Structure formats: structure tokens, C-alpha cells
């Protein structure tokens, strides 16, 4: 196995989950990759923005899953 970042990225892309969640996770993961060594990243704002952007496309069922 030659592991690298694509394993996680590919894992997220091929995950069997709601497309909105998938999109959100990929965006957040890329953000983490880009900011890997930055101290005190302003992740709270970024996360909130990404969540807000994708939450509207998410339809919740009674169990909390799509």
C-alpha cells in the first residue's frame, strides 16, 4: 500500500452518504490539508460557512439520516 492523501479524499468521494454531507466533508478536508501547518487557523468561520452552504441541500429524515 502506498498511502497518501488520496486515500482519505477517495474514501470521502466514494462514501455511501448524502451528497451534501460528502461535499461538505471534501471541502473541510481540503481546508485541513491546505492549512496543515498553520497555527490557530480560523477554522470556526470556515467550517460554519461550509456547513451553511451545504445544509440547505440536506434533507433530514426522522432518524437524523437522509
Amino acid at each position, binding site marked *: 500500500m502506498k498511502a497518501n492523501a488520496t*486515500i482519505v479524499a477517495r474514501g470521502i468521494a466514494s462514501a455511501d452518504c448524502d451528497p451534501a454531507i460528502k461535499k461538505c*466533508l471534501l471541502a473541510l478536508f481540503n481546508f*485541513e490539508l491546505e492549512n496543515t*501547518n498553520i497555527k490557530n487557523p480560523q477554522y*470556526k468561520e470556515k467550517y460554519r460557512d461550509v*456547513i451553511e452552504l451545504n445544509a440547505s441541500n440536506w434533507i433530514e429524515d426522522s432518524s437524523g439520516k437522509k
Partner: protein
Amino acid sequence: MKITRIHLENFRQHRNLEIELDNSRSSFTILKGRNGAGKTNLLKAITWVMTGKLAKDESKFDLVSLVSISAAKAAAKGEIIEVLVRLDIDLGSSGMAQIERSARFVKSGDGIQDLDVSGTNLSVMSLEDKSRGYQKEPNPDLWLEKIFPDRFSHYFLFDGEHLHKFFKDTEAAFVKKAVLEIANIDQLEKLVEHLGIVNQNLVKEIGSIAGVKGEELRKDYEFVEKKIESIVEELKQKEVSRVELDEQLTQARDKMGDIAAIQKDIALRNQFEGIAQSASNRGQEARKELNSWAFKVGPALMLSAQIGAIELEIETARTKKVLPPPYKPEALEELLSQAVCICGRDLEPNSDSCKHVESLLAKFAGLSEIGTLLSELQQPLQYVKARIDGSPETLQSTQERIKSALSDESKAMEQLSVIKQKLAGHDDAQISFIAKKHDEAKKALESLILQIGSLERQLEDQRERLALIRKDIENEATSKEKSREALQRQRFAEATLNTARGMYENFSDQVREKVAEELNEEFQSMIWKKNFFKPVQIDDDYRVLVSPKKFDVEWRNALSAGETACLAFAFSLTLSNVAGFSYPMVVDSPLGRLDSEVKEFVSSVLAKALESEIDSEGKQILLLMTDSEYDADVADALAHMKPKVWEIVFDEENAESRLGAIK
């Protein structure tokens, strides 16, 4: 990735050192030198330029300590001294790079310690496209972290003397970091952590817009959240203490094991002292006998020539008839007076027989004094002669006994000397002190485990409480139109968090198992006990476990020094394999703690590692060894790998190290 050139300026004893390393597929360099020649400082220089630390556990240090003494001495007041380490590296298909870390100092006084730090710098020049030439990296720290993750560093740049610490429980956190670094699972871990915090913020946000009750609930939520934070913090500290105590206990247990060994040695010492004493007694006894024999027989032996002469004289006297007959004249006179012959017959007075005896008496009446004396000497001479005749056997047997006693004594003394050496420095007080420490650590650990259990229960209670408050907040929000949107956002965040958490657990388990599998393959290929150990495991706590097949117990602490070295080297290779990057391995004293017979074996393992076909780039190994490490056997074991051997020597006069002739 390979280092092609190492350049040092004013770094400790390296005033100006440049080493060219080859970047062939199997790049193997040996730098040998005596203790204090500067090998360890070369490793520290490489670690410093790559990580900013001098070693894994040397992140905080006085920068002034880096400055070469001779440079500090030579500099005039006000002069600037620059400590600089530069590595040229070959990144294979990704090009080349030059990494340089430096620190500048101003000499503020006349003393060599009068140095003020005026600045530090890290710069990276990378060459990805030859037509564009070297480009300065705008963020060298980030570039370096990507190319050589700090978490990996101590598995590639390490001191062989510390190999035994590689897989202690206290190191599990480092193993975890190194393993999770692979495949960027650590980034996913960070994502989960950040998402959790943002999710909690979203819950509070809902509360604050869900009316008065919602606001109250938000405050409750925040209160419980803080309480949870404080419990988690306390738990972290307790966990650190638990690991430390566990380590102390293991050390104390190891020492207790030593104590048992010491006690065994003491019993052996007593036994050999007894054997030596008994042999010494036997020797003394035999020597006494020899002395007494020599006292008795010695004079006789010394007189044996004279005794022969006396015998000859007696014989001559007899022939010349100057010696009396075997019967004393007084006895013959007595017989004569009683008229009895020597043969017992009666002697007739005036008979021929009687006259013969009388004539004999008359003949010997004038015997000389010497003749009488000689006659008296005959009996003691016979006694002495008998002694002399039996003496060679006595002498030989006594000598044999002395020899055997001496040999027994010498053997026992030899054993005794070994044991005494092992026992040197131990005393009863020390042993009882260790036992006391062991008991204290055990009690403290038991108490800590109880405290951790109680904290974990509290944490669970608080988390349940938090979940209930969150439910109340959600209920409150559902009834308010304006907070419904926020609720939708929070639920989405929570669903995303759960998905991410599931992925993290899944990926980290996969990578952990994969690393363990590869580690096992590497380790098994290195050791000779192919069927003795179960497959190497990395457990949920990221402890590397090696157990023997026959016993269901952890055997890690019982690995030999050679096997521990193999496990450490195997781990380094595995990280390279799994991560898909080939990092240069720089090891100081790789064979330092190994017995001579294991040295050769580990050397061949290293050579084999170099041959490993893990990727197209091949491996690079730089070993820093003392002369005693790089002995003839080790040189033989490594010869077929054609290492480039340099010698590093310390010039005492100038307090500087320099490279000697290439061998």
C-alpha cells in the same frame, strides 16, 4: 528522498564541514570516528535543519550552545558569528532542494559565552523545473513539514543508544502520530475535532435565538460544556501521570527482576567462595605435607651421597676385617662364659670350637672406634634409605594434589571475579530502595486508576446531561420559526460529524492494521526466530506488541537488544513503505548497545534493508559509528554493500572536527 550534501558552519565542533553523499539507488555511507569526534553533533545538525529540534526530546535548548567554541574564541567583540546547516536533497521525480537553517550571534564581550542571538532563519530553495532554476519557497516551514513530517523525524534520524526506548508505552503517542500521518488521517482526525467544536457552537447558537428559555438552556449547555472540558483536561493530565507511573512501575519491575538476578548472583558468589576456600584449604594441607616431607626426607636426600660413601666404607671395613661380626663381642663373651655356641650347641671347655670363639674375640678385641661407629650407623642408614626409595611417589602425589587444588581455586576465583564484577555497586540499601519505589509506584498507580475511573463516570454523566439539554434546546427551537433554520444547520453538522467520525475510525483502523502487517513482514524477515513470535500487532492504544507464539503474554520487554534494534529498523522501513516516501535514515551508534555477536547480524539486516526494493528511489542510510562498532566483522558484513566510508577526527588543538581520508 536523499541527502546529497551536508554542509555545516560553526555548528559545535564542526567549524566547516562538507560531506558529499551519493544519490545512487542504494546510498550507503559510514562515518566512523572516536567518541567526541562529532558524530552525534552531525546527527543533531541534520535533525536541527529538518525539524528545528536537536533530537526528539531536545526541542528546547540554548541556541548559544550550538556555536563552535573555536569560532566564539576567534571572534572579536561585536563580530557576528553564523551557525549554519545546509542540506542538499534529491527528491527524485519532484526535483531538488536546498534546505538551510541558520542562527546568528553577536559577540558582546571577550568571553566565549558572551554571545547574543541576533536572529534565526530557515530557507528552502526548491528546483522543480530546471528551466526556472531554484525558487525560494514562500513558506519553508510548511514545505518542510510536507516533505519530511516532524512526526516521522525521530524514526529516521535517531540515536541507536536509545533504540530500546522505541516501543515503550510512553512512546505509543509518537507511534500513533507517525501512523496517522500516513494517508493524512491525522487531517481527518483534526477535521472531526473541529467539526465537533463547531457543532457545539451551533447548538448554542440555536439556544440563543430560541427565546428566553432557549437562552437559559444555552447557558446551562455552556456550563456543562465547560465542566466537561475541565474533566477532559483533568483526565488528560491523569492519563499522562498514569503512563508515567506505568513506566516507573515497569522500570521498578525491571529493576526488581535485576534484584532477583543479583540475589542469584550473590548465592553463586557464596558458592564459589566456598569452592575457592575449600580448594585453598586442600592446597594448604598438601603444601604442609610437602613441607613436612621435605623436612624429613630433605636432609636424607641431601645426605644420600654421603650415605653411599659410608656404606662403601662399611663394606671395605668388613672386607678388611676391621668391622665386628654381626654379634657384639659382649654377647660372644656371655656365650663363652656359659659354654654355649652361637648355633646353640654346648661348647666343651678347651675344645676347638671354644678356642675358635676365643680367637675371634681376641681378633676383634682391638676394633677401632670408627669401626664401632660405622657398625652402629648401619641401622639408621637402612631406615633413611627406605625413605628415600619411597619419596618420589610421595612427592609426585603431593605435587598432584597441590596442582589440582590450585586449578580448582583458580577456576573458582575466575568465576568469582565475574560475579563480583556483576555485583559491583550493589548493596542491600539500594535493593530495598528499589523495592520501596516499586511499592510506592504500584500504590500510586492503583489510586490513580480509581481516580480516572471516577472521572470517566463523571464525564459520562455530564455528557448525558449535555445531550438532554441539547434535546431541550432542539425542542425549544422547533417551536420557533426563526430558529428552525439554525436547527437544520446544526443537525446537518451533526450528521456530517458522525459520518466523518465513522470514516476516521474506519481509515485509522485500516492504516494501523496495514502498518502492523508491513511491520510484521519486515521484522520477521530480519530475525532468525522465524516461528517464535506471533505477528506483530499495533493495538488500539498504538502500542507495538510482540508476543511469543507459545505464551499468551506480551514479550516486548524480553526482546533481545538485537531484536529490538530489528523492530526499530523495521518500523522505520515500514513507515517509508506505507507512506510511499523514502526517507534517508541517519543513525548514530546503530550497534552501540549490541553484543559483538549481534552486531554482525544487525549489520547484515541493515545491509538487507538497503537492498529493499520498496520504491524506485531506493534507500539511503548514513551510519555514524565508533571504531569499536565498525570492527572487522561488521565491515565484512557490510562490505558487499560497498559503503562509502569517511573518518571524522577531532583536532584537539583547534577544537574542531574534520573529515579524514576516504577509505
